[in-house]
């Protein structure tokens, strides 16, 4: 019996799809198809984002001057308060520098930061991924940490020239290394697929962790720089049959509101520049004739 052409076509396309899936899985992020396609998806994202952008613009336009001066005053006040808080925080960190992680986090202040706008485009049902309007042309890289004013939001998992996609820490595929702020206890925080909920994994029944504990990024794994707030412990359940505690935490970053996020280029793992050492190194490299 001869095979019908539609069956042949079906099998061919099936094999092609599976082949593409394999290619995408093993050459993720530098897939030529994705790069050529980003020029098509860019106007699509713009189009979907357009209504919310115009409404923002209209609101700005009709906002009267008095309201603007009011909000400016309020922001100035907030800024002053934050500056004072920052000073206190720095003093506190200095006084606690027996903990190595805190010493490292003092250098976090020097991290390079770029603000990126969130495109009002939704990639899936649960909005665990966000599109930003900054991409390769702004030196954004895969795995780059993204934060907001309150804590870690996620990391860059997809990238094209003009935009990038952040996967939130609450995505079920993400796990973030953290430590308890109070005592430095290390833990792993897994996403659950819900914006308000994270699971704290692998803490034995004797672990020193309480409801209300703040969890900071620990810097282990070199993905997220140490010392950024991640979550606060919400609930702890112990089950006699399980060897680990069931701990849930609430992310501190405002994952479902806000218009802007911050991309950070962590500096903590690099040597901090020191003019004296640098000049010595420079003279050595000059006498050696070698490239630094």
């Amino acid at each position, binding site marked *: 019996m001869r095979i*019908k052409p*539609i*069956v042949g*076509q*079906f099998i061919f*396309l*099936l094999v*092609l*799809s*599976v*082949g*593409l*899936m394999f*290619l*995408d*899985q093993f050459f993720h992020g530098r*897939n030529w*198809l*994705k790069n050529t*396609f980003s020029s*098509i*998806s860019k106007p*699509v*994202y713009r*189009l*979907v984002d357009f209504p*919310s952008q115009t409404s923002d613009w209209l609101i700005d336009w009709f906002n009267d001057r008095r309201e603007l001066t009011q909000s400016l005053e309020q922001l100035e006040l907030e800024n002053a308060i934050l500056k004072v808080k920052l000073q206190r925080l720095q003093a506190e960190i200095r006084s606690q520098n027996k903990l190595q992680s805190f010493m490292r986090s003092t250098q976090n202040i020097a991290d390079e930061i770029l603000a990126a706008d969130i495109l*009002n*485009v*939704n*990639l*899936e*049902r*649960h*909005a665990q*991924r966000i599109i930003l309007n900054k991409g390769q042309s702004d030196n954004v890289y895969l795995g780059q940490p993204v934060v907001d004013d309150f804590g870690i939001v996620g990391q860059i998992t*997809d990238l094209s020239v003009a935009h990038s*996609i952040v996967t939130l820490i609450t995505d*079920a*595929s993400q796990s973030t290394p953290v430590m308890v702020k109070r005592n430095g206890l290390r833990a792993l925080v897994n996403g659950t*697929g819900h*914006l308000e909920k994270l699971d704290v994994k692998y803490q034995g029944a004797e672990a020193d962790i309480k409801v209300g504990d703040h969890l900071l990024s620990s810097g282990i794994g070199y993905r997220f720089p140490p010392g950024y707030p991640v979550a606060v412990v919400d609930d702890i359940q112990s089950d006699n049959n399980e060897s680990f505690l069931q701990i849930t935490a609430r992310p501190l970053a405002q994952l*479902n509101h806000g218009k802007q996020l911050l991309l950070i280029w962590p500096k903590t793992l690099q040597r901090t520049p020191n003019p004296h050492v640098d000049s010595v190194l420079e003279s050595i490299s000059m006498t050696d004739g070698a490239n630094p």
Partner: protein
Amino acid sequence: MNSQHYVPQPGWPIHLSLVLALLSGLLPVKESIAEFMPNLVLLVIVYWALYRPESVGLGWAWLIGLVQDLIMANLIGHHALVYVTVVFLIKYALVKNKNYAFFDYMSWLIAFVILDLLFAIVLNWSVQQISPQWSLVYSVLGSILIWPWLYALLSIVEALAAQIQN
């Protein structure tokens, strides 16, 4: 509609409905509604494959799946594979006898939506080790609720397009 003397029908309703379905997938919706949001692209493809099988090909369905995967930054090939399978099943096995009732189509649709869902669950689990979530079942419910309305809308558009052409 009139199957006695066949006239080629305009293709723009198909293209337009697909573009709108693709875009609607990107629109931000409230989280409470988001759980019920069906995959509109799948529903639109199923509609055209059932009611206009002569203007819907396997390559066409594959290409739409590919475009969706690229726009949604999914694993490339995921939706392409699902849509090819669905259109193949419809064309090869189902649309030989055109005397089916609306509810037959409805039950096939449910089967296809579940197929789409199962495939997503298997893929999530095998590629990213994500365990399936119960909330995915809500989108099946959403598909069932939205199908009659989509059916009505698309048949009106189709009828209008045919009228404009004549």
